[in-house]
């Protein structure tokens, strides 16, 4: 069952690895490879952010019956590159009477936690930088560091609006982190592993959302809601509610300092969508049916990273759709939603999933001939 995969990058990558290993001592070979991986991840981070910003502006414009950016390049396609150059050469304004060290350190907490989570995502076959055996816990771990940057930014700005925004953000993040973690744990109960590569491999014939049917769908919806809230985007954008707080925790930041928050916000949206894709929608695995080799071969001609980006883009689109469809929540409604609805539903759901798995009611349990991985 080895399908022909002409467009995968695994061959190229292994050639590169063999080339370095043959020509350099082991220490330098791994050093060079690590640096190359780092540069690739950072470049992908920046490029995806640019594409997301352009896509968001365009889609938002269509939602609001406008044209969006349309001057620079065909359909305004290089508008975000121009914006990037502009933000890079902007002056960083020094604020009086702030805690210098914390003020300048705060954006790095946010951007570091975002890059660390980004690095662990499996983008395609052989396109995963690190593959921990506790991959899901790792993703939750590093994304929990970002809130420290937000809190510090709010406090060190010496501005009451920033402070209120930061406190709101802290409360919101701590609350919704619980739901996101529980929703992912529901899937861990089903797959029996936390390693992202194994989770993707287990979804060869049945995506987790179908495999676990009812509990999995509930977990998926809860994960999308809480992920949306964690990234501080509308309708959960209270921390930066521009009507009340000017811009919340990043009011006092300028130039690239602000750019870091902006980048991290967009990339966190992408990371949430990518994790949901990996855990619930089969990750980079092409859509396959057991026993239908011709169909599977055609599906494998589409490379895995295209599958991944396609599924992720769909979820990002849903996130934008939600953003422009619902009004902003009030802070008490926001916390009510989490503590009184999502968390109890989640706890019941995780027990429902345990029962489903133990009774063998998952699709792989009920129909091992159609959906089981072993032939």
């Amino acid at each position, binding site marked *: 069952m080895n399908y022909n995969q002409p467009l995968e990058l695994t061959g190229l990558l292994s050639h590169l690895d063999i080339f370095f290993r043959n020509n350099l001592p082991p220490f330098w070979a791994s050093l060079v490879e690590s640096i190359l991986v780092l540069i690739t991840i950072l470049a992908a981070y920046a490029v995806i952010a640019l594409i997301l910003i352009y896509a968001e502006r365009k889609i938002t414009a269509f939602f609001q019956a406008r044209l969006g950016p349309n001057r620079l390049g065909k359909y305004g396609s290089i508008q975000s590159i121009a914006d990037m150059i502009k933000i890079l050469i902007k002056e960083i304004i020094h604020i009086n009477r702030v*805690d210098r060290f914390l003020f300048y350190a705060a954006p790095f907490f946010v951007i570091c936690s975002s890059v660390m989570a980004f690095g662990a995502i499996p983008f395609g076959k052989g396109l995963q930088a690190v593959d921990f055996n506790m991959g899901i816990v790792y993703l939750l771990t590093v994304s*929990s*560091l970002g*809130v*420290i940057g937000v*809190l510090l930014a709010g406090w060190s700005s010496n501005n009451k609006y920033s*402070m209120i925004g930061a406190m709101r953000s*802290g409360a919101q993040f701590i609350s919704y982190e619980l739901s996101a973690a529980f929703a992912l744990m529901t899937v861990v109960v089903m797959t*029996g592993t936390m390693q992202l590569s194994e989770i993707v491999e287990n979804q060869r014939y049945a995506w987790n959302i179908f495999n676990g049917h009812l509990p999995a769908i509930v977990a998926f919806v809860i994960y999308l809601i809480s992920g949306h809230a964690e990234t501080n985007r509308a309708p959960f954008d209270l921390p930066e509610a521009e009507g009340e707080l000017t811009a919340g925790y990043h009011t006092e930041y300028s130039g690239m300092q602000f750019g870091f928050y902006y980048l991290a916000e967009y990339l966190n949206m992408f990371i949430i969508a990518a994790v949901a894709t990996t855990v619930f929608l089969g990750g980079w695995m092409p859509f396959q049916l057991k026993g239908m080799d011709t169909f599977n071969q055609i599906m494998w001609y589409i490379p895995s990273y295209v599958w991944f980006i396609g599924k992720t883009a769909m979820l990002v689109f849903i996130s934008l759709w939600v953003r422009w469809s619902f009004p902003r929540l009030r802070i008490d409604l926001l916390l009510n939603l989490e503590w009184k609805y999502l968390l109890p539903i989640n706890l019941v759901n995780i027990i429902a999933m345990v029962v489903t798995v133990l009774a063998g009611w998952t699709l792989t349990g009920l129909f091992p001939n159609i959906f089981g991985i072993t032939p």
Partner: protein
Amino acid sequence: MAEQIIFFILAVAIALFSVLAVTSKRIIRSAIYLLFVLVATAGLFLMLHYHFLFAVQVTVYAGGIMVLFIMAIFLTHRPGEIVDRRTNRKVKSSMLLSFGGLIVCGYIIVQNVTRTYSYVKEYEMKMQDIGYAMLGTGKYQFLLPFEAISLLLLACIIGAIMIARKEKSVESTDNKDLDK
């Protein structure tokens, strides 16, 4: 070689930020230096290929406790204020105490380092093994302590809610005063 370089970077970071955490004059900065110490310690666990402990260290200490520390410091009176240095005698006595602690801990570690070394396994520990160890009732399995700790945490949460909750009657009288 790479491991040694990373170890020295982490060791220097831990030592430097530990000293800064106790000597800094602003309480909020102390908290951040402490955060750096905890994250660097997590880096040591990562070097030992003990990934689960790394994740727990970062989630519980850096992501959980430090966020609560920072929020609690925000609630204090003037968190960024520069505090005057304590008197010399106090500094000296605490230095002596910490040296005493260092000697005791160092002695214990040096005495036992060869013994623990044989426990550390070469391969990476599987998540499933940790799960069985936490939730089993056999030998070297820890369901009872695990449940005891969760009961303790539950008691803490209820206690915290009891302290934080305002008395209903007091609140209603306050409102009456406002109405007048």
